[in-house]
């Protein structure tokens, strides 16, 4: 898509998002955390979903946002990162010395 077509599409969205029960992407952004924490009222949730249904950008953004969370969680708690290759003997010795002293 060319730059000018993109601009036109966004301008159309700009008009559309002012309709009743519509929010802008910027407002949508502020709902994301509460949506994921399941803290939206049913009305807010409907408005959130309505925006998702008409906005390709936010749909893909949210999908990537959630994929990023999942990837972070999975990599950071996986066995290989959670456990260094070997027991740090220096530190074990320091801890045990402090215990005696």
């Amino acid at each position, binding site marked *: 898509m060319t730059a000018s077509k993109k601009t036109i599409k966004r301008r159309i969205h700009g008009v559309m998002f002012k309709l009743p029960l519509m929010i802008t992407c910027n407002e949508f952004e502020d709902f994301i955390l509460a949506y994921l924490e399941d803290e939206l009222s049913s009305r807010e949730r409907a408005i959130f979903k309505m925006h998702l*249904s008409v*906005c390709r950008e936010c749909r893909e953004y949210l999908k990537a946002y*959630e994929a990023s969370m999942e990837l972070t969680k999975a990599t950071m*708690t996986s066995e290989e990162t959670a456990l260094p290759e070997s027991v740090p003997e220096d530190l074990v010795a320091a801890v045990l010395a402090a*215990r005696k002293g």
Partner: protein
Amino acid sequence: MRLLRRRLKFDTSSERFEAGFGADFEASLQRSVPVVNTSLPEKEEPQKGDELALLRAGDPAASSNFVRDHISWMLAVARRILRDAGHAEDAVQNAFASIFAGLKNFEGRAALKTWMHRIVVNEALAIFRKNRPQKDESIDELLPVFDDNGCRIEAPWASFETPESLLQKSQTTDRVAELIEKLPDSYRVVLVLRDIEEMATSEVAEALGLSETNVKVRLHRARAALKKLLEPLIRGQEL
């Protein structure tokens, strides 16, 4: 203008909302949501009574085994909170001191490892607070961009690598760890505590001396920024 009106009608009709991509998209949301609220995966049965008794009595062999069993994961937790390896070691030493001191009062109601996890997190945060930068570094350049109408500017996602497929590549873990490091400290620590150490918003707020609202704002910005940083991986443009 006619085109405009047609689009509006089409896009906002509830028919499209219900039937369009509802099912698929719903399913993808359902799949990924539990990431947020899963409970601590590493909960264990409390250690057996006799081991605890030996530890409390200061038995050298029991102490040595205990430290060697737990020090690696504790160091990993401290390192996620503190970038500095020396600070992380200090946090672990302090944590063991607190654990040995607290063992006599440990009633075994909570799993031992859960209790120890809280202690090492708290000790790491004590060091974090002491070394925290005075001024928050900016995260703005990693946050999503909107035009004057409030419309999101997001390049189309032509390809999308799922977390599952990325996890099959051996370099992914190191690369993700590297990219998390790029987040400003005050945001990174909130993300680590909430999304990796799985603490509640209220616990994080208390630990960092922030309001719950502030924790939520930081968490969302940190996630948004990390999404931006991980984008080349998720778009399949890297690795």
